């Protein structure tokens, strides 16, 4: 996005935002009508008299081949606000790998079964387990650029190519069991800029969105996780659409190093559910209903025994895509 801020207002460089204020959902307008009598409701602040016991909050993201870092805090009262002290100075976290104590300098490997245990003299003991998932390398990668146009930075006079990009990533889901994935990307080199993946162009990124969510204006909002429920044990081709990408041209007018790296992560179920929970709290209609007594309130997702914290794992593969040849060919076609 930073590069977009640097662009000047040259007519052929004006861009459409992928995050423009899309319609916020008809039901958001309908519900007030349907619930007109309920709108006369009111709120009354009160302080519930209810016993609480703080619990340990253990979180870690285990990545294949990388050192493990865990965080240990504790739960706090909602009414204490975000400034409450949640540190656990006397907490200890231990790790078992496949039933054995983790050796010094341990680096997780795919298939390792990890058990985290956190203890504190004050807050007790919590546990969590996670298995490092197997990485899945894309079987095939195809890409296609379209709508290529030459644009000019007004302030510097430098030129760039503006284009749309579609990357087709073919995945062979390894097992007929439930797998969870996450897509990420980063530019390769310093010449490629893009605002990101258009998640609406690939239905699988919207599989967590219910139809009522859609009608109340819920959007994918950059939700980059998906499951293999639609293609368990089979192949599936992801359609990754990048809109309004830019590739700087050299002073000589050539396409320089320009490309991107698409990262396919196999993630644990806990990572997927955490992401989905965060999405649901901001976009899910049933979470809103729980807030007003028309559904059950939903606590934060956790796979730690105490109910606080998330221990997740991931393995990643990536594929580099060099756009220079195709862009160079397209550049030659331009007038």
């Amino acid at each position, binding site marked *: 996005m930073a590069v977009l801020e640097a662009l000047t207002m040259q007519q052929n460089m004006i861009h459409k935002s992928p995050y423009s204020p899309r319609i916020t959902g008809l039901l958001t307008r*309908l519900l007030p009508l349907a619930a007109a009598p309920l709108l006369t409701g009111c709120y009354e602040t009160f302080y519930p008299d209810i016993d609480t016991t703080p619990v340990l909050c253990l979180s870690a993201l285990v990545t294949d081949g990388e050192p493990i870092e865990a965080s240990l805090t504790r739960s706090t009262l909602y009414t204490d606000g975000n400034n409450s002290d949640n540190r656990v100075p006397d907490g200890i976290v231990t790790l078992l790998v496949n039933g054995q104590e983790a050796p010094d300098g341990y680096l997780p490997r795919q298939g390792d079964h990890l058990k985290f245990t956190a203890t504190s003299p004050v807050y007790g003991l919590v546990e969590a387990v996670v298995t490092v998932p197997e990485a899945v390398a894309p079987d095939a990668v195809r890409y296609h650029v379209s709508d290529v146009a030459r644009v000019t930075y007004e302030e510097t006079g430098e030129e760039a190519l503006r284009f749309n990009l579609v990357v087709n990533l073919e995945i062979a889901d390894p097992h007929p069991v439930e797998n969870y994935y996450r897509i990420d990307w980063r530019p390769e080199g310093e010449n490629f800029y893009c605002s990101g993946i258009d998640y609406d162009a690939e239905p699988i990124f919207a599989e967590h969105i219910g*139809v009522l969510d859609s009608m109340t204006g819920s959007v994918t909002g950059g939700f980059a996780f998906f499951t293999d429920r639609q293609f368990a044990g089979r192949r599936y081709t992801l359609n990754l659409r990048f809109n309004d990408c830019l590739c700087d041209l050299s002073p000589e007018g050539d396409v320089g190093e320009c490309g991107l790296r698409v990262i396919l992560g196999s993630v644990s179920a806990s990572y997927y559910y955490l992401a989905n929970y965060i999405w649901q709290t901001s976009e899910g209609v049933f979470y809103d209903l729980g807030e007003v007594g028309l559904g059950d309130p939903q606590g934060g997702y956790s796979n730690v025994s105490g109910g606080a914290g998330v221990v997740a794992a991931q393995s990643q593969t990536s594929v580099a895509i060099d756009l220079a040849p195709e862009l160079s060919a397209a550049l030659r076609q331009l007038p």
Partner: protein
Amino acid sequence: MRRLLILAAALMTMLAATAQRVSVNARGSDAAAVFRSIMEQTGKNFVYSTDLLRGVKVTVNARNRPLDEVLRQMFRGTEIEFSIRGNNVVLKRRKEAPERTAKAARTTPPPLPRPLEINAPAELEEVVVVSRLEDPQVETAEMGAAKISARQLRATTVIFGEPDIIKTLQHQAGVAEGTEGLAGMHVHGGETDQNLYMLDNVPIYQVNHLAGLFSAFNTDMIRYADFFKTSFPAKYDGRLSSFTDVRLRDGDTDGHHGSARLGLTSGAFSIGGPLGDNTTYAAGIRRSWLDVLTVPLMALANAHEEDEKIDIHYYFMDLNAKVTHRFSPRLRASASVYFGDDRLKSRNEDTYNDSYYYGQDYYDLSGWHTCEKSLLHWGNLVAQGALNWRLGERAGMEITAAYTRYFSSIKYEYDSEDRYMSETDTTRTRRHTDNNISDWIVRADLDWRPREQMRIRTGAGYTLHSFLPCRTDISNMQNGSLLTVRDNTRGYGAHEASLYIEDDWRISRQVRVNGGIHLSLFAIDGKVRHGVSPRLAANWRPAPQWAVKGAYSRTVQYVRQLSQSYLALPTDLWIPVAGRFRPESADKIAAGVYWQSPDGVYTASAEGYWKWMHNLIDYRDNHLLQPPLAMWDSRLTAGRGTARGIDLTVERTAGKVTGRASYSLAWADRTFPEKNHGRTYPARFDNRHTINLSLTWTPSRRISLSASWTGHSGNRFTLMPQEWVTPSFGSPHGYGEYVPLQTQPNNYRLPFYHRLDLSLDIRNSRGYWNVSLYNAYCHMNTVAIRRSITDDGRPVFQKVKLIPIIPSISYTWLF
């Protein structure tokens, strides 16, 4: 007086025209039972006030005699006189009671004089002898059963003044209403889907309109409803907690009568009458007219918006039609259809012609056009045909074929067209979710009275179920490239067979027993589940005014409704019990004491129960995190529940002032191995104390004033006072948020709930006005607790209070 003369003349005319013949043989039998026999032979309805026949025994022996002669014989020597008006036999008390004879003796002193209301056609449908619950509670073996008349339906005040059978049942002792204003019904600690609603004995699955604000039953078409909540006749099974059999009215034979009603939210029209000599019809339609309001509102809103056009339509509708034909006094056939649906349709078009800065970014939206459409459509279709065949004088048979279907469809479309210079980007998004359940039903029921003191009911049925729990399609087309994803949900077919037998046996004057068994088979996915549901209820009467009862019932349920909220939404699914799940079942024991005053005006009862529910199915924790495309059963877990309590009821049923007071003390809990670490927790509607008071004052024939007060311990709520911070994992998506720490479900009890409802009926010669106040003293009850932030930034909890006083008015025209 003039009106009485006209009525008498009409009755005389009708008498001459109705020389039907009947055969009856009864000795010291309940009058209600004899009426039932006559009704089955003639198709006549019997109309009388409920206190008129209390304790009346009749003796009559007639073979193929005219109806009026048989009736004269029946009532000879009693204080009851009759008149035949069209399809109705109207009974009332003579002005001077005659001497009693040995043949017909009233066992109770004559009650207080009470005017009979026989003029208004609507009243004629209120008390007819077809319900199995005509006898006083002290005489029957059944426990916790009630017959709800059309008058009771009208006397219950509900939001917007719309008569509603479910909200009437919510006032019964032992019934928790759930979330205020909605059509929830939690009977003796059960769930909403554990109640079986039947329309003329055929199951109906979706019983709500407008998210539960209204029920799906058009009360103008209802003759009465039988409600069972404690002990259950063997005929009924398939749900754990209660059975409600709603009976539709037949058309009149003496002319075309009907009503038209206009209320704040809907209008209704019903009519019934003869079609030839032996055929009657009845039809009714009810439709909301909220969409009539929204059209001008939308037009106003759109008039001020050049670029945005919104169009919203919502309505719900019920249609009932019933035709009854009498082939002979012994053979009668009927066919009926019910269709009810809700439809919410909306469309929003935006044309953007502007551009703006957001920070340093410049956004040009010109040339962008979007169109968003949605359609939610859900409802029921019930069609049935029935053949009633009288087999001699002591037996009758009914054969029924029916089709019932619940359907739900949600469609969402989003189209976007973005013209940018010479290019045009188009996006088409489609989401479509379907779920439905269809049943084909055939059934035969036999009612046999081998002896005067014994009545055997038996029957068998077969149901072919088709389930489509939830099928979702998502497709996206962008610039001609189409991608479609469909979930793996498939349809399920299931076969259900049932057989029952029930014997209601009056062993002696003091002892009456109702015993039976209901057997069922449910075959799905190559597996056959079976259910054995024994039933036993006994009544011991140590004194004429007293009864002591005990009962045991086992119930089995093969289908389950999944709802993600307390609103009745088209996302609610009916699913079969399949795969790793076993049928839900419940064992219930109950005992009670009943009293009736000698004049039959007052009744009182105390019932205690204990219920164990097995294999209950519920959502797992965090089930909402499962994508909609996940198989529905992956979101579920199984457990158990218990409920126990005491229901106390005192009622006055006759006189200018009638009313009821009830108190319930109850406990209900749930235990799921995969929820709350396997620990038992209270049910959501574990209302410890519930008090219902209702009073109706009828100072004259023209005016009736009703008041009802409801108070109960607050519903339970999951209040999460702690929070923790989610890990960010280096994600750009804003993790690192404070989220609630999950606690024991339903750990907090909301404040005591109470409200007063008032209703006034004012009659005139053409109909009646109804004026009502829901929540008359405007006590806004707490329905939830929410997290909030005060203006000065302090995080606090707030009680959410929703429904204030709601006045309503309606007029019903009778013709």
